[in-house]
């Protein structure tokens, strides 16, 4: 069977197929009866080792709109909390006949490990600091819908790059799709080998903003301060936060994105988050459509349409 483990594995053709399929399926969400019979009789398991109501709900809704049977398996209060390992959980789900497993896990590579133990499709819904491919796909879809293209689009990703699976997925997917990515962060929050990544790096947000079509703000956990990644939350906010003054440096057509959850007043000010050029709630809506597309392409036919 085939899986979606990382956005970086997708070819231009495969990624474009997901985005085109998303567009078709998005129309379902506009109907009064928001349901297709496509995955009737198929079972999708949401296996969530991290609390993430947003992502789990998005996948659940996507699977239900395609008429799949959905089982939510959260680590808390299950056999996992009694010490069961990932492999045994995988074998249990396998025995229950799961056609697809959506996994969220705090260990990088957990989705890949799961894929070695089960026959069904594995869909990575975020693994540690590694990747979150559907987030990058929904981000790319949102950019394409708003700005009409991805090729040559100038995208600034701002914040805690080092610990971010969203950044990793976006850097590689956007590079595949022809966008020009610039990472903006204090040097402590950028990986040491970032010069080998298919993107540019800047430590100066104000210098980057005027040459940016899309600015994507990442959440910065205040706890990072304890590990000396930056001196104080206030200093971080002053140097790398997107406030009204910095927002004004963007070209008029530029959009502001955030994968959520946001920390208003830290990386983004309320006035920017609530601006009409902010796509934050649109991203949530698009998330459902993208996940429908991915589930459809992985589980819908007799042979998966893409993936490895």
């Amino acid at each position: 069977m085939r899986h979606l483990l990382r956005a970086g594995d997708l070819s231009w053709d495969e990624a474009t197929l997901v985005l085109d399929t998303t567009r078709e399926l998005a129309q379902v969400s506009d109907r009064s009866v928001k349901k297709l019979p496509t995955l009737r009789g198929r079972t999708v398991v949401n296996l969530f080792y991290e609390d993430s109501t947003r992502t789990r709900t998005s996948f659940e809704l996507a699977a239900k709109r395609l008429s799949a049977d959905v089982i939510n398996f959260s680590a808390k209060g299950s056999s996992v909390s009694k010490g069961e390992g990932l492999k045994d959980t995988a074998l249990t789900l396998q025995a229950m006949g799961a056609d697809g497993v959506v996994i969220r896990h705090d260990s990088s590579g957990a989705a890949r490990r799961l894929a070695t133990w089960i026959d069904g499709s594995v869909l990575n819904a975020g693994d540690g600091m590694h990747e979150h491919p559907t987030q990058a796909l929904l981000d790319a879809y949102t950019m394409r819908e708003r700005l009409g293209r991805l090729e040559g689009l100038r995208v600034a990703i701002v914040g805690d790059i080092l610990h971010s699976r969203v950044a990793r997925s976006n850097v590689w997917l956007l590079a595949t799709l022809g966008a020009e990515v610039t990472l903006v962060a204090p040097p402590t929050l950028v990986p040491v080998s970032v010069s080998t990544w298919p993107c540019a790096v800047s430590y100066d947000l104000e210098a980057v903003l005027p040459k940016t079509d899309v600015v994507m703000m990442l959440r910065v956990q205040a706890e990072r301060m304890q590990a000396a990644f930056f001196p104080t939350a206030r200093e971080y906010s002053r140097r790398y936060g997107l406030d009204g003054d910095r927002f004004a440096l963007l070209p008029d057509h530029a959009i502001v994105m955030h994968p959520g959850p946001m920390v208003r007043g830290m990386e983004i000010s309320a006035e920017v988050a609530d601006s009409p050029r902010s796509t934050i709630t649109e991203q949530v809506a698009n998330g459902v459509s993208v996940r429908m597309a991915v589930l459809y392409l992985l589980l819908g036919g007799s042979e998966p349409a893409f993936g490895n």
Partner: protein
Amino acid sequence: MSTTDNARVIRGARILGGEPADILVRGGVIAGFDAEAETAARAGTEVIDAHGLFALPGLVDLHTHLREPGREDAETVTSGSKAAAMGGYTAVHAMANTDPVADTAGVVEQVWRLGRDAGYCHVQPVGAVTHNLDGTHLAELGAMADSLADVRVFSDDGKCVSDPLLMRRALEYVKAFGGVVAQHAQEPRLTEHAQMNEGVVSDRLGLTGWPAVAEEAIIARDCLLAEHVGSRLHICHVSTKGSVQILRWAKSRGCDVTAEVTPHHLLLTEELAESYDPIYKVNPPLRTAEDVHALREALAEGTIDCVATDHAPHPVEAKEAEWSNAAMGMLGLETALSVVQHTMVDTGLLDWPALADRMSATPARIGRLPGQGRPLAVGEPANITLYDAGAAREIDPAAMVSKSANTPYGSMTLPGRVVATFLRGVPTVLDGKMQ
């Protein structure tokens, strides 16, 4: 006569890869060569045909985890010393990070006695530097040195003695009985939550990096400390190019430092982590091809003195997990000689006498281990490994003699095969099978 004094003639073995010779083993020592061996053979002494095989001095490992007491599900002194014999070893140094920790005379004597009773190789306990490996209080090093186990190597391996003052005191203290402190060089703050070598691969995989500097900074500090107090320092499992440069510099200053490299750091690189298969998760982590190259050169020139396996058995479930939740470490005893042949001899970096130096004589000297690592000469203990360097074998994890199967070489084909191992004249392995 041949039954009572365990006499055997090893016929046609090429000692250290030289011309074929016959070796007479009697009473646990090498009693003579060609003429004496021929006489004994005619008198009916058992003859072992070793034509085409190399005779090497029994290998000595400075760094083995036997897991007993405490983790007998992974390995025991008996199963680990069998694995050692299977790999051509006649002596292993059993690391102290057991449960309970080998930090008292009682525990080291227990391990020593278990090894002696098993009888597959000499099991030499390593004593912990600090009480319960806590890094803050010295263990009773003198009591362990004076015990039946005769401990000379002290190590908190698995943990770094990171407190510089404590390290200084340990180095000073062991001078009283000719001991050596074997340091696991890993600056703890720089490696919090570290999962693999920090660099291109860790950044892409989203695994917390383990920078080379965390190893190198400790090595530099400890070389300076050892020099200052005039003591003997040994560096465990050197893994980076920078460490090699520091060791070269320290030795040139006259610092009494020795170092070991593991077989896996001579062969494997960090790209293997891309599978997220924790069979490749190890401490220190697999590094880059550039590091591997530097380690091989250093072992060839002697900047790194010896090979040590860091044999680290783990039960299946400890490795069948997500990378960050899996245990660190890999098996080494049964594949070490093949890996060193492959990386050092077949590449032209070492000849067979030099290999014997790096895997037998030098580790025995560093460990102050009498009767091990001796030349194959008349009157010397008959610790002998017969090795078929021309063989090739596919490594089968399930076929390991070790109680565990966590070898990283599964399904790889490696050169060479240990045909026989003699411990003080008694075969522990014969025809490639445990005796």
